[in-house]
C-alpha cells in the first residue's frame, strides 16, 4: 500500500511537472521572424492563430523569399518590416505553388484573413524532376491534407507515413506542445536541427571544415543542368494546376494578391534559360495567374552580383527587392 501511494505521488508529480513545462513552452515560445528550416505543424498553426496573418501582408513562397543562406534580419521581408509594412514571412525552403495553395487553405480554415498575399512563382518548380513538385512540406501536409479535395490530394505525393507510430505522434503533437514543437525548440536553442548537429557544426567551425565547404560551394552553370524543364507548360502540370487554384482562391476571398516572377541569374543560367521556350513559360504563367493577381516580373531585374546562385539573392539583392516591393505594399 505504501509503495502504491509512493508511485501515485511520483506519477502526479511527473505529470504536473510536464504540464508546467508545457505551459511555459506555450507561453514563452517566441514568434520567430520567419519559419525555421525545420518548422513543425504545431508552430505553423500557432503562427497563423496568434494574429500573425490577419491584417498582415503575408509572404508565401520558396527559399528565395525565405532568405536562403541569410540571417532572418537580412531578408527582404525583414527590410520591409523595418520600413513599417506589417509583414509575416511564411515562406520556407522547398516552397512551391502546391505549398502556397495548401497554406492558403490552412489559413482560410483557421479564420485568418491577410491584408494581402505576396507569393513567388519559380519556373524551376514546374519541372516534374524538382523536389518540390507535387510534394507538400511535412508540416504543411499535416495541417492541410484534410482541407484538400480528393482530386487535389490525388495530384500530390504524401510524405508523412500513415503508420500506427505516426498516428501516436500526431496525437501527442496535438496535445503536448513541447513534443509537437520539439523541432522548433531545438532550432531555437541550438540553431540547428538537434544538439548533435550543433556540436558537429561547432567542431566544423573550429577545424575550418565549414570554411572549406563554403569555399567549395561555388555555383557554376553545369550544376544547374536539368534544373529547368522548358517544355511547354501543360494544363495538367501540377504546379500549373495549383497556380490557377491559388489565383482563384485569392480572388474568391477578395484578398489582394501579388505574384513575383522569381528573379533568375541570367548571366549564370544563360545557356539554359535565355531561349524562347523560357520566355514562353513566363507568358504561360502570367496567363494562368489571370487578371486579379498583380504580377511583378522580376525575372531580369537583378544583376549577377546580387545572386548567391541561380535564384537566391544576396543581402544586397534582398534589400533591393524590398525597395522594389515597398511602393507596391505600403499603400
Amino acid at each position: 500500500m505504501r509503495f502504491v501511494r509512493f508511485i501515485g505521488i511520483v506519477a502526479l508529480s511527473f505529470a504536473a511537472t510536464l504540464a508546467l513545462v508545457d505551459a511555459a513552452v506555450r507561453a514563452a515560445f517566441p514568434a520567430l521572424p520567419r519559419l525555421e528550416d525545420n518548422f513543425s505543424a504545431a508552430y505553423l498553426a500557432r503562427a497563423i492563430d496568434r494574429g500573425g496573418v490577419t491584417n498582415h501582408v503575408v509572404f508565401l513562397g520558396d527559399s528565395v523569399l525565405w532568405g536562403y543562406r541569410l540571417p532572418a534580419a537580412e531578408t527582404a521581408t525583414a527590410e520591409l518590416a523595418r520600413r513599417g509594412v506589417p509583414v509575416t514571412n511564411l515562406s520556407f525552403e522547398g516552397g512551391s505553388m502546391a505549398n502556397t495553395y495548401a497554406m492558403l487553405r490552412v489559413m482560410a480554415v483557421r479564420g485568418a484573413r491577410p491584408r494581402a498575399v505576396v507569393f513567388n512563382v519559380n519556373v524551376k518548380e514546374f519541372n516534374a524532376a524538382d523536389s518540390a513538385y507535387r510534394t507538400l512540406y511535412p508540416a504543411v501536409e499535416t495541417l492541410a491534407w484534410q482541407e484538400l479535395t480528393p482530386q487535389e490530394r490525388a495530384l500530390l505525393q504524401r510524405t508523412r507515413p500513415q503508420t500506427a507510430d505516426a498516428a501516436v505522434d500526431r496525437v501527442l503533437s496535438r496535445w503536448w506542445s513541447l513534443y509537437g514543437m520539439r523541432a522548433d525548440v531545438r532550432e531555437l536553442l541550438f540553431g540547428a536541427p538537434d544538439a548533435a548537429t550543433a556540436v558537429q557544426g561547432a567542431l566544423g567551425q573550429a577545424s575550418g571544415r565549414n570554411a572549406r565547404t563554403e569555399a567549395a560551394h561555388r555555383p557554376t552553370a553545369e550544376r544547374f543542368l536539368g534544373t529547368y524543364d522548358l517544355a511547354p507548360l501543360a494544363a495538367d502540370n501540377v504546379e500549373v494546376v495549383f497556380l490557377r487554384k491559388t489565383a482563384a482562391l485569392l480572388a474568391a476571398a477578395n484578398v489582394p494578391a501579388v505574384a513575383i516572377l522569381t528573379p533568375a541569374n541570367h548571366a549564370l543560367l544563360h545557356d539554359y534559360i535565355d531561349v524562347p521556350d523560357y520566355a514562353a513559360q513566363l507568358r504561360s504563367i502570367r496567363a494562368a495567374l489571370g487578371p486579379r493577381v498583380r504580377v511583378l516580373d522580376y525575372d531580369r531585374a537583378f544583376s549577377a552580383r546580387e545572386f548567391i546562385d541561380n535564384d537566391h539573392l544576396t543581402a544586397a539583392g534582398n534589400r533591393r527587392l524590398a525597395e522594389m516591393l515597398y511602393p507596391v505594399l505600403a499603400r
Partner: protein
Amino acid sequence: MDDRGTVEVPGAQPVRQVLRLDPFFVLLNARLAHPVVLGVVLAAIVVAMIVLGPSTDSRFIYTDF
C-alpha cells in the same frame, strides 16, 4: 553441552534480509527519493530526452546544388 547464555525468545520473527542494492529499497529509503522529487526528476529526464534527442522528423530535403 552447556547451553547457558543462550536465550530463546518465544515468538521471535526471523529478521528480513534486505539487499541494500535492491532498487526498490533504494527508491523507498534514499533520503533524496521523496516521491515529488522523483517525479520532477523523471519529468526532467523526459524533457531532456525530447530537447536533446536526435532530429528524426521527416522534412523536406532542400536540393542544394
